[in-house]
């Protein structure tokens, strides 16, 4: 039997402005609806579950401060991903660059901490973390720009090496980054001058505002500067960029280095904030990978990263607490995060294409009954 309908994907010339907001919003709601089906099927109340998630993620003091605290890191890894993605450079190794940020930040905090005041020390730690993250992506950036080697593969594989590096610096006796006073594998604390205080009784650190400023600054760079213009031209049409005399190679390297630096910065923020040392459990948390979801949810729009970062963090914090306040299994929260990514990517199709269903009128369909 022939299907009497056809789905037509018509590429949009320009995305209508309202869709830029509607599609991500619809993606989240679609994911929640999808999750509701699972909740119903397993005997949990979707309304009750989501109410709980919202309360524990956004509408309580601990909830909102924990959400903003987590978003501090996820906004950085989110911009890191989005900044590269918008130029079709798929840096999916933000996770590994974040580990290097921890190492670079911890190095500065330990080695230089006793010599400098907090006001200088904290920026230095953040800068060293960012530099370490950039250094980690330098080789993938270089070979991508010169040889066209897939940065997807190289950045991903380097993440595994970075994870081994974290284990190495913590579990090797005598390591510079390991606490020398105990035979237990513990990170060595950075100097007091390299540590910030959290706000009141919360787990939120002033680094949150650094993340906001960075997000705003990069948005401005992309929209208003010549460098941003080059990025836009190259991502729209590499060939046009070439004829316009834009050095795509150099821009590629710079964009990837900045992307790596942003993930590294996220790692260094953990050093000046909650950790104060290298915590080997970082390799189980997936903050770098979560940045990819945050970027996808914002459709790589740097202006929206803050919103999607906070939204996604809230879902994670609220999802974590589901187990505490209800009997909902942890897997529901994890599934919702995955569903959001899936629907956010699926939603791209609606944004890029005008999709409509048309009746097929060709003669053959009438002649061939089922």
């Amino acid at each position: 039997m022939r299907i009497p309908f056809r789905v037509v994907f018509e590429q949009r010339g320009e995305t209508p402005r309202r869709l830029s907001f509607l599609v991500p919003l619809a993606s989240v709601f679609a994911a929640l609806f999808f999750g509701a089906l699972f909740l119903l099927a397993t005997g949990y109340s979707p309304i009750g579950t989501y109410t709980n998630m919202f309360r524990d993620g956004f509408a309580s003091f601990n909830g909102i401060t924990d959400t903003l605290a987590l978003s501090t890191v996820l906004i950085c890894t989110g911009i890191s991903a989005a900044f590269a993605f918008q130029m079709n450079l798929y840096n999916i190794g933000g996770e590994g660059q974040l580990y290097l940020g921890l190492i670079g930040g911890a190095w500065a905090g330990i080695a230089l901490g006793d010599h400098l005041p907090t006001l200088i020390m904290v920026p230095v730690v953040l800068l060293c973390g960012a530099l370490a993250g950039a250094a980690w992506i330098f080789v993938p950036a270089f070979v991508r720009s010169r040889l066209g080697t897939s940065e997807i593969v190289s950045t991903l594989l380097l993440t595994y090496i970075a994870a081994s590096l974290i284990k190495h610096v913590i579990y090797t006796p005598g390591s510079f980054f390991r606490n020398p006073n105990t035979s237990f594998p513990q990170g060595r604390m950075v100097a007091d001058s390299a540590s910030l205080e959290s706000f009141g009784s919360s787990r939120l650190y002033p680094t949150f505002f650094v993340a906001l400023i960075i997000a705003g600054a990069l948005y401005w760079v992309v929209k208003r500067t010549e460098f941003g213009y080059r990025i836009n031209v190259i991502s729209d049409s590499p060939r046009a960029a070439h004829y316009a005399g834009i050095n795509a190679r150099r821009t590629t390297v710079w964009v990837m280095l900045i992307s790596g630096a942003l993930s590294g910065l996220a790692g260094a923020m953990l050093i000046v904030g909650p950790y104060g040392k290298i915590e080997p459990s970082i390799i189980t948390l997936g903050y770098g990978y979560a940045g990819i979801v945050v970027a996808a949810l914002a459709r790589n729009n740097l202006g929206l990263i803050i919103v999607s970062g906070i939204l996604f963090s809230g879902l994670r914090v609220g999802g974590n607490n589901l187990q505490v306040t209800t009997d909902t299994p942890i897997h529901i929260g994890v599934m919702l995060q995955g569903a959001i990514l899936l629907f956010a990517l699926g939603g791209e199709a609606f944004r890029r294409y005008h999709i409509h269903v048309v009746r097929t009128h060709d003669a053959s369909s009438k002649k061939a009954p089922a």
Partner: protein
Amino acid sequence: MRKNHIKGFALATAAVFGLLACGGSSSSTDTTAAPVTTDAAADYSMLKAAVVYIGVPDDKGWTYQHEQGIVALEAELGIEVKRVENVPEGDEGEAIMEGLAAEGYNLIFATSFGYGAPMARVAAKHPEGCFEWATGAKFLLTKDAGGEYATFGDVPANLGTYFGAAEEARYLSGIAAGAASPTGKLGYVAAFPIPEVIRGINAFTLGAQSVNPDATVQVSWTKTWFGPDTEKESAESLLAAGADVLAMHQDTTATGLAADAKGAKWVGYNSDVAEAAPNAWLTAPTWNWAPYYIQTAKAVAGGTCPTDEYYGSMADGMVTLASFGTSVDADTQALIAEKAAAIIDGSFAPFQGPVTDQDGKEVVAAGAKPELLDLLGMSYFVKGVIGSPKG
């Protein structure tokens, strides 16, 4: 009675500075003095207990063993214990534990080393609750050891730790391994070069050498607790080097499967999973957390939070040996039973001297038993271990 409780100060001083415990404050005594209720009609309605798991209860390893203890606790006291699974360490774990405390849970067990600092912060904010950190050591929360408390006395008073002398069962499993190895070449798939793992390797080696003085144990570090592929590779490399019995400090059965494929024997860990490779299975050191969970819950219900650093053993049943495989003959089983009895009555200890390290230096004098603090910070390999304790 056995000295299960060690005073925190002694542990802090000695473990941090590598000294023996000193002075009057160090000798260990039971200071919990929990009024343990045995009355069947005891009221546990005030007790709200929760357990924080690093993994899932059906992992057939570390978390599974804790789950067995929690199930026993529920049955004994007729209460329901809240389980929170797959809890990340660090900030997110802290938020979850804080959520539990805010919900009124007044006894919280956390079953991973990495929960220590987050749990201490939550304990400080919730003095009404009782917090128990498995595998922890309070001195790690002090500034010297990389924690946030200036002195040991600043560590929240409502935080306790619990762990046990797995080395006792490790030693016994070493006897089974030594007796089952025709070549005397044993292998050990080990996670991380930390005192807990090093202690286990040494005890296993000493056990094997008690029946075969020439036995050697080659160590392969995987740098992961849970990594079936890496564990398999390590196991295969040890087998290729000639080992005919493999032991492990890992959370999966990969070592056993690799040994089985080569016709070698296997000493497991954590759980009795003989069915995974029945032909290879010898035995395994395992945990029984039930007595500790039950006694702690009863103490809390009676108004006392046990906050000493509890170090269980075979004597109190926290550490046990799993069932024997068919390759462990009756004579060996009898020998193991005899040693187990001696360990339990205190007449024998796995690290009873003389013990020499890899370089031939005497680390425990003949007839002496090392202090618990030396055991907890062990960083050398005994003679007969092939490999480096530095990883």
